[in-house]
């Protein structure tokens, strides 16, 4: 049952959103080490960018926060409470931790509005969602979320009829509709062109600043990490090899994270960066 009467997507957070890994390890069933002895603390409202070469364990880290990946040892806790492995506790936690995906993951044949309301599923009764019978207050939250990413006029359009950038905005709106304390974005711009990439990154930064939602973004372009991150975390073979301020990160640091020379493949587009 929904018991909240807020009329907008301003999160019930601003309070909360602290994440803490302690001696956290993830070994996949096939023996691959996805996370190794990770000790990491992220404060409420931080905007953290994670970098590392392919297979370094960026997705593994993000997916551990909302329980999509289970630790094989160690602990991870959100606001002092350990992330449950399954059941009702996990579902409760996931209501407060939103995720944004590289491939958007929208229900293509359904309206933008329905897609955003998916972010409210945890807050309505099973019967209501079954009948697609949403309380006015829930719809108001969804509309507010769409306004925040500037596509409220697309509310009744089929998701498949949107451009990639617009689809990712719906993905962000769905995340916002959860009124989350934490947003996890796994390479949110990897399938977008450079201009759209900057727009989406700007959206994420603005939302983080305005609503104080803790935000972790996986990126593979170094210039983007520098430009948008407050704090940069570098991973290599599942291990934390860098943790520092985005303003002071050097090319030497990036060489160290990647274990190789940084090439022009690792930056998005100098010209667009200069313009933006």
């Amino acid at each position, binding site marked *: 049952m929904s018991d909240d009467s807020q009329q907008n997507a301003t999160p019930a957070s601003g309070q909360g959103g602290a994440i803490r890994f302690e001696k956290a390890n993830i070994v996949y069933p096939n023996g691959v080490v996805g996370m190794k002895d990770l000790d990491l603390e992220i404060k409420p409202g931080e905007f953290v960018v994670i970098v590392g070469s392919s297979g370094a364990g960026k997705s593994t880290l993000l997916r551990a926060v909302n329980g999509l990946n289970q630790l094989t040892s160690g602990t991870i806790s959100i606001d002092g409470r350990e992330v449950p492995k399954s059941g009702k506790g996990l579902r409760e936690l996931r209501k407060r931790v939103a995720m944004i995906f590289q491939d958007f*993951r929208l229900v293509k044949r359904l309206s933008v509005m329905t897609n955003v309301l998916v972010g409210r599923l945890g807050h309505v009764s099973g019967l209501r969602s079954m009948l697609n019978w949403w309380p006015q207050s829930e719809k108001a939250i969804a509309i507010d979320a769409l306004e925040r990413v500037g596509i409220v006029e697309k509310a009744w359009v089929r998701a498949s009829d949107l451009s990639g950038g617009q689809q990712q905005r719906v993905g962000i709106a769905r995340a916002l509709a959860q009124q989350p304390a934490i947003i996890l974005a796994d390479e949110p711009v990897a399938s977008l062109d450079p201009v759209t990439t900057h727009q989406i990154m700007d959206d994420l930064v603005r939302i983080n600043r305005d609503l104080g939602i803790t935000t972790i973004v996986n990126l593979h372009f170094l210039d983007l990490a520098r430009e948008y991150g407050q704090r940069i975390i570098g991973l290599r073979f599942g291990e934390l090899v860098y943790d520092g301020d985005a303003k002071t990160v050097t090319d030497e640091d990036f060489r160290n994270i990647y274990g190789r020379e940084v090439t022009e493949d690792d930056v998005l587009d100098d010209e667009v960066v200069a313009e933006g």
Partner: protein
Amino acid sequence: MNAAGNTTLPTKPPRNWWLWAIVLGFLTAMTVWSGYGIGFSANELVCNIAGGSRLLEESWPPDFSFLPRLIDPFMETVYIAIVGTVVGGILSIPVAVLAARNLSPDKVTWFLDRNFMNILRTLPDLFWAMLFATAVGFGPVAGALALSVFTVAVISKLWSESLESIDMGLPEAVRSAGGSWLQMIQFSAIPQAMQHYVSYALYAFELNIRASLVLGLVGAGGIGMILETQRANFEYERVTLIILAVLVAVLIIEQISETIRRRLT
């Protein structure tokens, strides 16, 4: 990986002619043996064709004056098929979802449902008609119930395979937004496989029209029953009319259904 691009196609393995010969010989032997088994003889076939031609003469021309009396029974046949398709179509949704390996909540449920589905498929529609006839008596209701079961068998098997091939990224997104299992099914699995569902339901309807005719022959009502009574009374000119009318009607229905199905995909 080979960056230079100098890949060579591996030599094609030689065809195994011996295997082919053995398979072919085996199939021939099976066919001949089975033919003997059912008492098939070319001689008899020729004699029966002669007898059959006499029957054909009696059956011509079709008795068109009988046509108006076919409308009600034909509609009954269609109604039986519709009820069977709708009831079976609804019931097949949970059966298919639980039988999809990627969606089923646990292995035990999956295993039980899968076997349930296979049992439904193994038993023919006539069996179900007899079973329901003993419960509710011969007639359209027993026919519709039998077709409901038949429909569940048809749709759930095909559709559970569609469900198994959906992109699992979306269900994961719904779960990670705090959605329950049921919400995950409703908002991510079913929308992805909806087109297939409608297509299979229409296909089941086509099968049900035909099955409904056959069930009529054994007393489930509708046009099949009229056909059987006219045949028993040696009214062959009416039988011809019924067969022609059914042929045309079924072709029309299948055309419509097929057109819709093709639009969907």
